[in-house]
């Protein structure tokens, strides 16, 4: 039986294998404490897979890299990536690792017809309901008002076209509400822009309105024209193929009654 976490004789991790949004990743590093922290943090998203995308992690800052397909800096840490692998450098703790992993995924998902969105996702009756909004819009509130075990994330949702059908995937990225770490996915039931109100109501959005709702909430860090063009293409496709709504909601469970089934 293969293990998602390869452990050396001393109990030190040699690598951590993850599956996020059906993207198989292998984190490897000489820094055993960092890998142990990663194994704990991403528990639930560990999975042994073939043909993993290699991410090498080092605590020390790296010299200025040669040209790469993607590169991004974050508070002294850096991610560089190409089609055959990625390097994270200057990773001093698990929080820096988490930030670089989000940055990397925002780029890697382009090739998977997917993207990361500041949104909570809740699965109900086999469908994923995505609640989008910036900080304070009510993502964590919606998550906390949903039945336990149904929340894929309250902070960063992963949306992806799977064979012509848009799905939401769980992510290991949470805000205030700690989800159960279930790495599952479900076809989208709709994308909802959160508006706190005194009554519950849903109002359909036109595709252009949905696009303009999502764009400011998309996690994206590449400044390359080709990457941005690809992202826009993916977002337009999602906006045209997924039902979008304004959700005016009260801060209680009653808003579920007005959601389209």
């Amino acid at each position, binding site marked *: 039986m293969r293990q998602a976490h390869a452990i050396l004789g001393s109990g030190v991790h040699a690598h951590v294998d993850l599956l996020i949004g059906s993207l198989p990743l292998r984190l490897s590093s000489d820094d055993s404490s960092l890998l142990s922290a990663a194994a704990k943090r991403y528990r639930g998203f560990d999975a042994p897979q073939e043909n993993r995308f290699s991410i090498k992690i080092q605590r020390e800052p790296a010299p200025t890299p040669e040209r790469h397909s993607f590169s991004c800096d974050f508070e002294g840490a850096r991610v560089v990536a190409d089609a055959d692998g990625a390097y994270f450098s200057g990773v001093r703790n698990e929080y820096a690792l988490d930030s670089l992993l989000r940055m990397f995924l925002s780029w890697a998902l382009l090739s998977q017809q997917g993207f990361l969105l500041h949104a909570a996702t809740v699965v109900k009756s086999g469908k994923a309901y995505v609640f989008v909004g910036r900080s304070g819009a009510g993502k964590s509130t919606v998550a906390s008002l949903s039945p336990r075990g149904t929340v894929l994330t309250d902070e960063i949702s992963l949306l992806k076209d799977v064979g012509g059908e848009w799905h939401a995937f769980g992510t290991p990225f949470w805000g205030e509400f700690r989800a159960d770490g279930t790495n599952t996915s479900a076809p989208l039931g709709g994308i909802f822009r959160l508006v706190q109100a005194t009554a519950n109501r849903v109002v359909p959005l036109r595709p*252009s309105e949905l696009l*303009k709702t999502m764009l400011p909430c998309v996690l994206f860090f*590449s*400044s390359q*024209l080709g990457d*941005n*063009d690809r992202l*826009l293409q993916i977002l337009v496709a999602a906006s045209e193929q997924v039902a979008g709504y304004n959700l005016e909601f009260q801060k209680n469970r009653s808003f579920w009654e007005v959601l389209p089934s």
Partner: protein
Amino acid sequence: MNVAASGVWQKNPTLAWREIDEETVIISPGESVMHELNDTGSFVWRNIDGHRNAEDLASLLVEQYEVTRETALADTISLLEELSTRKLLLPAGSQQGDSGR
């Protein structure tokens, strides 16, 4: 006559843009800024090709929409000024390429 009225413009080739619902959404990768154009703005944007000037674009507007030539020209010049101020347009020939789609 001002620059927007007399000049010939091209889309800034560093931008990503798409049409949806007869609107246009433009993003500037370096600045992570989103710009929006309504249906008539999108029509003008679509026809900015590095060759047409404001009068040419206004003529196309008159053919497409029920609008007087005077109004079409004034609106076109206003839009070109706005787009050039935002650096969404560049004087034709100032940079090669056009990422139009």
